[in-house]
């Protein structure tokens, strides 16, 4: 068990004087879904690009499927075993879904009959059969992303890398895509994904790292991270202009920790019922609600900032 398909130590990526990835360590195990959670510009995409060999490694070591990737000598072998679903839509717009896949089948050197069979399989897996002959430019965002996933799976990769897979999709397409990715997980695929959506990370990832300013600031399973960094529940009280009303001061002593955001006061606690009752009593006009803590709270706790802004 726990065979490492990727192992990074002190991994660095620089662009000029800017250090995008600043000495990070992580291991990805075979068969798991591993996530990089962080705000835009945190270094997630740079890390992914080093893994799928689109960017040079500027420092540290990066072992992928047993090869040292940093010197670039095994790029072809590594890329043959990694499928990539990039953030931007880079399908061939003038070609049909099927033609897009046929072009890539040649890049993976699949013999023709095998390519045809594999393409049929993937069109079915991603429910694209009816769109097989539609041109890419005519597809919705969700269908485009599904086509890109089919394309990423063509070479029967050992690792599938997904960079922000649901960014820009409508809620229905997001849920649909999560369902497809969960189906892949059930087939023991190794998934590597970046996201700045905490619900996505919580839903899909077995383990994840929280990344900020090019550094890993926390690592573990979603449940572990929540248990380690924040209390189980949080009570949110609506604020206007970040001003904390004097009545709320009394509540603070019942919370384990307090965060003041521009629109909300967050009171972290082991149990929320008492806080909610008090809030309703002291400030009947303000909306107050209790919820389970999430990775969003973990991120806020660690970095002092909100994730999705």
């Amino acid at each position: 068990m726990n065979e490492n398909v990727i192992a990074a130590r002190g991994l660095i990526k620089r662009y000029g004087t800017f250090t995008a990835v600043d000495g990070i360590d992580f291991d990805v195990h075979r068969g798991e879904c591993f996530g990089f959670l962080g705000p835009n510009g945190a270094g997630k995409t740079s890390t992914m690009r080093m893994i799928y060999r689109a960017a040079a490694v500027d420092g540290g070591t990066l072992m992928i499927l047993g090869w040292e990737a940093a010197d670039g000598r095994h790029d072809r072998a590594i890329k043959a075993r990694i499928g990539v679903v990039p953030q931007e839509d880079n399908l061939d717009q003038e070609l049909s879904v099927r033609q897009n896949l046929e072009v890539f089948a040649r890049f993976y050197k699949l013999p023709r009959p095998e390519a045809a069979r594999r393409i049929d399989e993937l069109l079915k897996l991603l429910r694209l059969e009816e769109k097989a002959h539609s041109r890419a430019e005519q597809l919705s965002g969700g269908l485009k992303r599904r086509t890109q996933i089919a394309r990423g799976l063509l070479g029967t990769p050992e690792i599938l890398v997904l960079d922000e897979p649901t960014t820009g999709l409508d809620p229905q397409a997001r849920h649909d895509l999560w369902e497809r990715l969960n189906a892949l997980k059930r087939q023991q695929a190794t998934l590597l994904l970046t996201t700045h959506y905490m619900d996505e990370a919580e839903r899909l990832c077995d383990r994840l790292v929280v990344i900020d300013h090019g550094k890993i600031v926390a690592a573990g399973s979603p449940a572990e991270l929540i248990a380690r960094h924040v209390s189980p529940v949080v009570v949110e009280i609506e604020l206007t202009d970040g001003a904390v009303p004097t009545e709320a001061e009394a509540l603070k002593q019942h919370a384990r920790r307090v965060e003041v955001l521009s629109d909300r006061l967050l009171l972290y606690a082991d149990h929320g019922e008492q806080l909610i009752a008090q809030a309703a009593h002291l400030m009947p006009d303000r909306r107050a609600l209790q919820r389970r803590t999430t990775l969003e709270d973990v991120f806020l706790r660690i970095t002092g900032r909100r994730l999705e802004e």
Partner: protein
Amino acid sequence: MAPSRGVDWRLAWAVWMRNFTVYRRTWTLNILPNFFEPLLYLVGMGLGVGFYVREGMNGVSTYLAFIAPGLMAASAMNGASFEVTYNMFVKLHFAKTYDAFLSTPVQIEDIVMGELLWAVTRALIYGLAFLVILAGFTLAGTPMLSGPGALALPLALALIGTLFALIGQLFTSKVNTIDLYSYYFTLWLSPLFIFSNVFFPVDRFPYGAQIAWFTPLYHGVRLTRGLAQSRFGTEELVSAAWMIAVCAALLWIVPRTYRRRIIR
């Protein structure tokens, strides 16, 4: 300079196939202009202007026959140039097509060679359309080709295509904005078209021939004009060697500039 990683020709062919697949969709629509352009020049310049031109044509009897091989060389130049300029720039910067290719076992060197082969294919499509028309004129009693030398013209067109594809690829690897191509076309390809002996001997200007000797289309025109008359003397040999040598140098340089540009 970054080391080049070697080319997998099967993957270069796969890149060629991708371009062919896109081209094939509009094949019937695209092929026609390739025939109109030569006709336009041959009729307008060759028969129109040619009516007033009576001498100085290096032993060729008509102005029409004088300009035809040079125009054919220029059409190969144009055919190759469009593919490696605007088309390649879009795939590189806007459509992110190459990013997608590079996420597979395809390496940048395979892409550069695949695009090169495709640009040569386009140069041949343009050039051969021209050749077919010249053969038609010849058979119809207006001689433009004479002797077996014409059979080597496809090779010359492929060489011209390779040369201009590599020059265009080098330019594309260096530019950051698509607007710069208007300079490439108006300040580079257009002057070459005018001052490479296509329409008049360039030594009409002081040092004209000496300067033109260092430019690529001059040699393309000299070679095609020689072959059209089944002449392969020192001049034609020197021009063929000149183009092969420059191609060889660029084949070394161009993949390396792309690797440095793309893999950062």
